[in-house]
């Protein structure tokens, strides 16, 4: 029966890759939409403490970040191992916090300037003295809404 005659030559049929760009584009768009770019590189250790009574910081445009903790291993030669504050890409002292907040506030839109939240991303092993100093500075410039940014987890994870 000629209908079922085997084709000559055992070559594998070529898989069409014409739809590959479509698939890749689909993934690309997903990541483009979901992406939030990190605007500063971390220069401090930043193992956040865990908490479970938390609220989300949804609107990124009304948040400013203050990092604090021990300088990470790359910077310990230069800056020592005492906990420090990081603002944008630089180490800073407590007295620079107020100026930073004012500068950040000035870059935001008028209607958002009063609803800004300061997110404190502080390493769990930092002492409260530094955080209290930051809080006092924030009070001076009337940036009263703060958020202690944490990992999601139970408080018992904070023990080690």
């Amino acid at each position, binding site marked *: 029966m000629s209908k079922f005659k085997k084709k000559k030559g055992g070559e594998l049929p070529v898989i069409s890759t014409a739809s*590959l760009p479509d698939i890749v584009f689909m993934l690309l768009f997903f990541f483009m939409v979901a992406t939030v770019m990190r605007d500063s590189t971390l220069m401090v250790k930043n193992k956040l403490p865990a*908490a479970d*009574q938390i609220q989300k910081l949804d609107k990124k445009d009304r948040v400013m970040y203050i990092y604090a903790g021990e300088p990470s291993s790359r910077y310990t030669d230069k800056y020592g191992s005492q906990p420090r504050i990081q603002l944008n890409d630089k180490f800073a002292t407590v007295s620079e916090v107020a100026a930073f907040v004012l500068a950040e506030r000035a870059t935001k839109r008028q209607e958002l300037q009063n609803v800004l939240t300061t997110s404190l991303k502080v390493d769990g092993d930092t002492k*409260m003295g530094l955080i209290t100093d930051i809080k006092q500075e924030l009070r001076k410039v009337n940036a009263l809404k703060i*958020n202690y940014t944490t990992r999601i987890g139970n408080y018992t994870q904070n023990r080690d």
Partner: protein
Amino acid sequence: MAKRSAPEVNAGSMADIAFLLLIFFLVTTTIETDSGISRKLPPMEDIEDPPIIKQKNIFTVVVNKYNQLLVEEELTSIEDLRSLAVEFLDNGGGEGEDACNFCQGPGDPKSSDNPVKAIISLKNDRETSYKVYISVQNELVAAYNDLRDREFMRLNPNDGLTFVEAFKMYSDPRTSFDQKKSLKPKLNLVKEMFPQKLSEAEPSKNKN
């Protein structure tokens, strides 16, 4: 002249370009949103003649420089903090106009009058570790949330939501306007019943 069809552009490298972009976004992406404990700092101005608060309405929590927890001047472990705070807030020991008609606590006259009057005072040392401080904050907020959940469910049994869930729904931008409008008074009512009165003292200096 014969009509020539337009030459087709080779799209073979399209996939490469797209891959390149894809990898770039894959590397720079951080999908998760930040979350944490939100607090409001008191404004800087000094209050002249501060209101007199009865000692029994204050629940003192102290964390010393050795990260030990003192609740009402007694050494306590952090596991017990939440239940102690709930017991204090929910005590309802007031009489007359201070009486609390929804409290389920023992009504001890030595403890707080009602949740509106009750204040939790948190004090920490400069040497206290941030982890411990966050744990304590977390447990105190949890105490408030537990009580608010209870009252929210009692007042709105048909919603099938706890206070925390309802609040989350309220702050979610996807929730419709009508739903938000119906949630808002319910949330505010419970917030007024259990206002978060968490006062933080200026930290004690380490003198030794």
